[in-house]
């Protein structure tokens, strides 16, 4: 078992310094800005939304039943049920962020636990864990997610779990490789020579060194997660209607891409922006936190 309890207590000097450095980068700053806006939108959705996002308004459709293009009344137009697209997009932010945080959180936890256990102990435990990871790697991820989503009653939590099941693998791989390398480093050897137990070594000496990878891959993983949720919803096996998610908004309206492009491309843009922001942030974090990219001699 891996103890996560003994995290580095004091704010890691590298991380605090890194954060300062981070906000000197215009791209990262922009990404953080977009993310903050989205978090704000998700939290304050009820205050922002001009309409009830689930209200199917009579005036939201043309007389023949066609969705309305963006206008002063409906800023981003309406969807096929006469609902306000802007309100739905705002509420959809919540879905994406919750999925991003929850699903990715689980994936990060599982991935890190598996990676550390396998990497540190090696032997048959490590062998079994890593073979299992290989197996999951070879699974066509989307197929797996679709089948899982079909088995369990779809709900936000289940979708998050399903995505986590698919996404922990990358984290496990990265952490495994790093732990393997760390476990052979001299300062760990010193610990063993000193008689420290594995729990202590992992908790006090290995985990603090993995924090940066976990943060970086955690951030990058969020974008994968958001995209996977969108894809599942796009295929109709994700978040259940009428809860809006950017993916299922596109799913509901996809055939209208030629007649009502805003219904497809605006939520598409939202997904892109969110994933892009997390990617940019993760990349900037990687640059600022990765000691290997600094101080090369």
């Amino acid at each position: 078992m891996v103890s996560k309890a003994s995290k580095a207590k004091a704010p890691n000097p590298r991380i605090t310094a890194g954060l300062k450095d981070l906000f000197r980068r215009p791209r990262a700053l922009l990404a953080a800005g977009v993310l903050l806006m989205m978090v704000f939108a998700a939290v304050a959705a009820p205050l922002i939304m001009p309409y009830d996002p689930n209200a199917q308004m009579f005036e939201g459709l043309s007389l023949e039943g066609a969705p309305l293009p963006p206008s002063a009344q409906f800023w981003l137009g309406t969807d096929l049920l006469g609902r306000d697209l802007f309100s739905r997009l705002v509420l959809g932010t919540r879905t994406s962020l919750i999925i991003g945080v929850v699903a990715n959180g689980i994936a990060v936890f599982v991935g890190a636990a598996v990676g550390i256990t396998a990497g540190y102990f090696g032997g048959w435990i490590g062998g079994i864990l890593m073979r299992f990871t290989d197996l999951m790697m070879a699974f066509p991820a989307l197929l797996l997610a679709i089948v899982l989503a079909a088995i369990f009653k779809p709900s936000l939590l289940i979708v998050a779990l399903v995505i986590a099941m698919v996404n922990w693998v990358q984290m496990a791989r990265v952490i495994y490789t790093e732990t393997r390398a760390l476990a052979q480093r001299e300062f760990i050897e010193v610990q063993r020579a000193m008689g420290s137990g594995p729990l202590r070594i992992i908790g006090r000496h290995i985990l603090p060194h993995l924090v940066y990878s976990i943060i970086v891959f955690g951030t990058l993983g969020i974008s994968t997660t958001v995209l996977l949720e969108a894809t599942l919803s796009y295929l109709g096996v994700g978040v259940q209607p009428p809860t809006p998610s950017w993916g299922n908004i596109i799913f509901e309206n996809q055939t209208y891409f030629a007649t009502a492009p805003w219904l497809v491309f605006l939520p598409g843009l939202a997904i892109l922006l969110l994933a892009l922001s997390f990617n940019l942030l993760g990349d900037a974090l990687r640059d600022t936190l990765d000691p290997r990219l600094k101080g090369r001699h």
Partner: protein
Amino acid sequence: MWGYLFRRLMQSLLILLGISLVTFVLLYLVPADPARQIAGRSATAETVANIRAQLGLDQPFYVQYGRYLGNLLQGDLGRSYLQRTEVSTLIWARMPATLLLMLGAIVAELVMGLTIGAVAALKRNTPIDQSLMVFSFVTISAPQFVVGILLLYVFAVRLGWFPIGGYGTFAHLVLPALTIGLLGTGWYSRMMRSSMIDVLAHDYVRTARAKGLGKLRIVTRHVVPNAILPIIAMIGIDIGMFMSGIVVVESVFGWPGIGQLAWQAIQRVDIPIIMGVTLISACFIVLGNLLADIIAPLVDPRIKLK
């Protein structure tokens, strides 16, 4: 070398076995009764039971799995419940389309990805590098279904440069291959860039400069060949991404490959087809990884297969 190959092959087989087991368990849990779908709505309960017995669905799980494995070993992927055709025939018929798409996508992403990555690395920290990297991030972050629909909308519907969907000519291939390739382009360009930067910092590049070699020669002979090495390991992962991508992309473009087959089968819970496609995709991924392992020592003399 042969011993290594053999062991890797055995390992791959084990992985495939594991995948078949997991998929079988999952599909066993899916709440849908194939016998009822086959029997149709006019059937009596008795008929349904009869069909269930014929398909062996009334047997305990391990018997069903055992029989599936037995057939699998003889190369028999089973018969589709609803299409009433050998799964292998169905997959085989769709394989050329998927392979073509794969080829197109890989060529597109390698050409674009490696070029962009190399240029960005050489122009590191210039506006060129920054805009290329933002581009690569956009391609990584854009959901494939949106990219696909966008390309379709702009280039096929609006501009009419390419056919709107279907299969057959090179023109049909461009948009779907590009849709999948763009994602790969993003990944490859980022990998290539960091790999190039890494290689550029190596002592032997300094040696090459000390030899008075020209920049072009240094890049093409010393930097790129070394920078490519870590990218070879991407093949397996790349095929995994491809396999996930085709479900969406093939359905957006009406591309008659196994992704479309899988999606239709999932909709109707046609278990033998889902099993078959999953296994075939897994085979591709496993083979991709194996291929990466085999190619690596061919291009990198330091690696020996052990």
